[in-house]
């Protein structure tokens, strides 16, 4: 009996580790190559920190990375604000066309990037808006909003509706309910929505290709354009740094959530 049990755990563990292996192996390969002492070869030529040093001096790559971070942070923040309010509206109030609006949100999530990209480009050129920072930011906010709304909405459904009725009974106004009850309740999903928007914005190529202008280049487009001449090892180094940053962000989130749970 014990033997079979052991076999089962082994099977489970190896299955799980296989999944994680498939997910993480490419990232580790990239990180390993960022230390490879060769410009083009994929064979191991020795350990070096050269690419990280080059990265420090490569201002062009740094500038586009900073551009990307600025856009991602701003887009995630605005989208989270707008998306949360939208989710609360959809949950709390009855108004004409509510069902339609609700399903339109899902359609936006499902619609291919290329459609969103081209339609935004058409919109901007009809309105005669110069392509650049603002068009990029607006577009990123636009495609992030539905994701935030869906995430926050799914958390709202799980809540007890009587909570809001009780609050109202005790004389809370709408804004008080929003600030003192809904926001604290929804906090984990709001952060999750922000993080998802941040990630989506940071690695979007297709929509950005259409809506950005000459004065504002971003990292994903820069890396994508290197495919013809070959991606430089400095990009491996940069991606490793960004992976580290993401890891840090996730750890911070877990840490904050645990403290919060302990607090309540």
């Amino acid at each position, binding site marked *: 009996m014990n033997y079979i049990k052991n076999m089962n755990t082994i099977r489970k563990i190896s299955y799980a580790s296989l999944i994680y292996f498939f997910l993480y192996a490419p990232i580790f390969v990239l990180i390993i190559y960022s230390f490879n002492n060769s410009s083009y070869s994929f064979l191991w030529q020795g350990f070096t920190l050269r690419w990280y040093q080059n990265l420090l001096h490569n201002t062009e790559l740094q500038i586009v990375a900073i551009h990307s971070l600025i856009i991602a942070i701003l887009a995630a923040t605005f989208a989270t604000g707008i998306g949360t309010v939208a989710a609360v*509206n959809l949950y709390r109030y009855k108004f004409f066309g509510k069902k339609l*609006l609700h399903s339109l949100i899902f359609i936006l999530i499902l619609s291919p990037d290329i459609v969103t990209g081209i339609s935004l480009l058409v*919109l901007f050129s009809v309105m005669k*808006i*110069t392509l650049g920072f603002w068009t990029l930011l*607006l577009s990123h906010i636009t495609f992030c909003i539905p994701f935030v709304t869906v995430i926050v909405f799914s958390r709202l459904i799980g809540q007890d509706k009587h909570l809001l009725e009780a609050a109202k009974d005790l004389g809370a106004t709408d804004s008080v309910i929003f600030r003192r009850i809904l926001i604290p309740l929804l906090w984990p999903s709001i952060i999750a929505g922000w993080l998802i928007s941040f990630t989506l914005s940071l690695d979007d190529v297709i929509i950005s290709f259409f809506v950005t202008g000459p004065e504002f280049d971003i990292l994903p487009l820069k890396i994508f354009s*290197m*495919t013809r001449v070959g991606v430089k090892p400095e990009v491996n180094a940069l991606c490793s740094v960004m992976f580290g940053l993401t890891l840090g962000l996730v750890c911070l989130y877990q840490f904050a959530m645990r403290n919060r749970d302990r607090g309540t």
Partner: protein
Amino acid sequence: MNMMLSSLRSLLSSPRKRGSKPKYLFFALFLILSISSTLVQAEEPILNVYTWSGYLPESVIHQFQQETGIRVNHSTYASNEALYSKLKANPDIGYDIIIPSADFVSRMIKQDLLQPLDKTKLHYLKNLNPTFLNKACDPGNLYSLPYLWNAYGIAVNQKYHNPKTITSWNDLWQSKYKEQLLAIDDTRIFFSMGLVSLGYSENETNPKKLNEVFLKLKDLMNNIKVFNLDAQKSIYIDEDITLGMALNGDIYLAQIENPNLQFIFPKEGFVIALDSLAIPKGAKHSDNAHRFIDFVLQAEVSKQISLETGFSTPNRAAELAMPDNIRNNPFLYPTKEIMKRGKFEIDVGEAARLYEHYFERLKMEH
């Protein structure tokens, strides 16, 4: 489009929540947007450059900014198609300098996307090598000036094959090379090999001849192991493949890491990919663009660009100023006799579809 806006707006405002904060923020954003877009109209010391990735070294941009006080915004593309579609979708997008390849230069001229150059503003024109001027893609160089060039030939690893036995494109058809070759994953370049090996023009548009080339290339498919465009250097360096099509500049760089690599200019001829500076019609800083072109034409700058990118320069003065080992490198600067066999591409118009069709069939039927 208005529908999209109004649906966004109605998302933000329920009957009871009229005037909530995010809505004001949204309108404020639009206000700032409209103001900033009107401000951009005025002339300014800015230059928007759109080039192939890795084609414009940072040091050159830096020097230009210091000398002229013009701020350069540099963005990059990976293919002529990306550049073309971006310009075509929005001609007023605001790029001031672009570097299309020869066939796209001729297509863009045909479609009125380029601005004629004002040669009175260009003092270093005489530096350019006449070999690369006045080509079919832009007769008289009214719209474009050569920037860098590459040649598509054959790469051989001498550890595995004797380079002397390979002199012609036709040598690649030998059955002993079964499943060994690398082919460049670019329709026109791949077909140019077949066209030139049959003695036809690299810009052939006759459907009958194209069909003949298709059949000839079909025989070659058994020898091809991989189609690749972006990783030739690593593939040849790591000896995953030891024979196949390649760019001379790539093999020059690869040879530094693997000295066994050799480059051959086939005897029937080879395509020279010429990338040229041009100014799009919608450019808002035409004066600055001319200053930039003139800056790049200087021997020292041109030399620096060529050294950092690894590709050959069409600038005669820069070529002469190169260090000896580069100037005499037979891959980068072959003799005049070899250069005579070089061929230049132009837009093939409607025939491009036929090329694509045959290329797809080759890959699918194999």
